[in-house]
């Protein structure tokens, strides 16, 4: 298991994930993947750390589950104004994962053109380098591209 995102820790070197729920390949290789916390009572999945379930009020440990790589485009926008320094325009979307959770993501491999974006279009998870941080570490993000 790789490290959680630890922004700016001078003791750390090498790539780090941009969000804590993205896990990068470890020394044994493999693919990057997303993780969620799954309620043992109702099955709701969350991306954040928590002590209980917002859906069913279960309180206790929500075990971590590895999420799949397939999803579909629930909704989207084409962003022309973002945080200073972020390249625009880009497509931002909400992706419904087959696991039953939705995640925010940039949609890559599609022109930022309303005519090219289809609700429900099948997508697959990819990872790439977002930027290099002030400590010189590569910051890795996930995104989605059209499947197939």
């Amino acid at each position, binding site marked *: 298991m790789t490290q959680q995102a630890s922004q700016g820790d001078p003791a750390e070197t090498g790539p780090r994930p941009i969000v804590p729920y993205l896990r990068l390949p470890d020394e044994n290789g493999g693919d990057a993947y997303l993780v969620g916390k799954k309620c043992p009572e109702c099955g*709701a999945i969350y991306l954040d750390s928590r002590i209980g379930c917002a859906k069913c009020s279960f309180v206790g440990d929500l075990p971590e589950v590895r999420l799949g790589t397939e999803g579909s485009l*629930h909704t989207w*926008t084409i962003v022309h104004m973002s945080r200073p320094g*972020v390249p625009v325009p880009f497509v*931002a979307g909400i992706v419904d994962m087959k696991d039953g959770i939705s995640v925010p993501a940039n949609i890559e491999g599609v022109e930022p053109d309303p005519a090219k974006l289809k609700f429900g279009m099948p997508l697959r998870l990819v990872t790439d380098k*977002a930027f290099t941080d002030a400590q010189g570490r590569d910051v890795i993000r996930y995104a989605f591209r059209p499947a197939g």
Partner: protein
Amino acid sequence: MQEVAIVGAAMVPFGRYPDQEAYQLGARAALDAMKDAGVGLNDIQIMSCGQLMATSGAGQRVLQQIGQTGIPVVNTANACATGSTALREGFMSIAAGMHDIALVVGQERMGTGLTYAGDESEGYVGSGTMPAVFAMAGMEHTSKYGTTIEQFAKVAVKAKKHAAGNPYAKYRDPVTLEEVLNSRMISYPNTQFMCCPNTDGAAALVLMSMEKARQYTTKPVRIAASVLTSDPWTERDLILVDVNTLTRNAAKEAYERAGIGPQDLSLVELHDCFATAELLHYDNLGLCGEGEAGRLIDDGETTIGGRIPVNASGGLLSKGHPLGATGVANVVEITWHLRGQAGARQVENAKVGLAHVIGIGSACTVHIMTN
């Protein structure tokens, strides 16, 4: 419960006040509202004050400007519903019989540029800017019902048309559909004219028990319902804020408490932080059938003179959105219409008005007023 009436209403024009503090704007609105009600600070028994970006004691600072009488002061912070949550505090204190006269103030000074939940993932893992969030919420409506960018853009055209008659709005110049569509794209489908601008402002209300109100005025405006909801768990709420469900819940409860339905409304001031949001709330507040919001704007039914005028003030798209002031100001606007004091933008024969605010995170208020 005691019946609660609005007896005083005032606001400072929304705009830019670089030389004044938010609590000074709030103090001016408070003085004007008390003058409107015919009361002085010594008559006020409790004060509630909404200012989201305040260090502490927002309401106390208002009193420190105009008179420290030692009354209880409650300060609220509830995202964009901060001011309307302060109103609900004043409402409850009178409804409960604890007090007879309450002062409610909402105030804010805003910065510049985008409002966004900014961390390093912004723009690399989707976008959390407010224009983007409300764009994606609008595109859900497009996905379900085929709502078009032109229909969303017509909201901004209507807003500016209404604002021409409102001296309290900052942006009052008319715009055409082409100008809205061709203004700078911020986050599709929201162009610059479809995003509320940053402004400073304040608004205030004097509330009384109905019994007390009749000593001061022959035209009290009754608060028939004051409802606050938060976001219940829904499928994607924690990923893409669900602005719909808690609005529907608040509207349903407010209609039940007031004993009326959406067909009884004379006018609505709703939370048009972005043009996309306004159309969502036509459906959410029951102003039209499910999914018919696009048709409602196309048919001009929400323009003054139409079946159910929405945002006769020009809305947040024209007034701007000083966070703490917004939820008080839209009730001030309804009050003026119900009294027949809204000037060039007056909705004829207004009898029942609804004011709606939603704050991300999430808090929603719905107030229904009658004359």
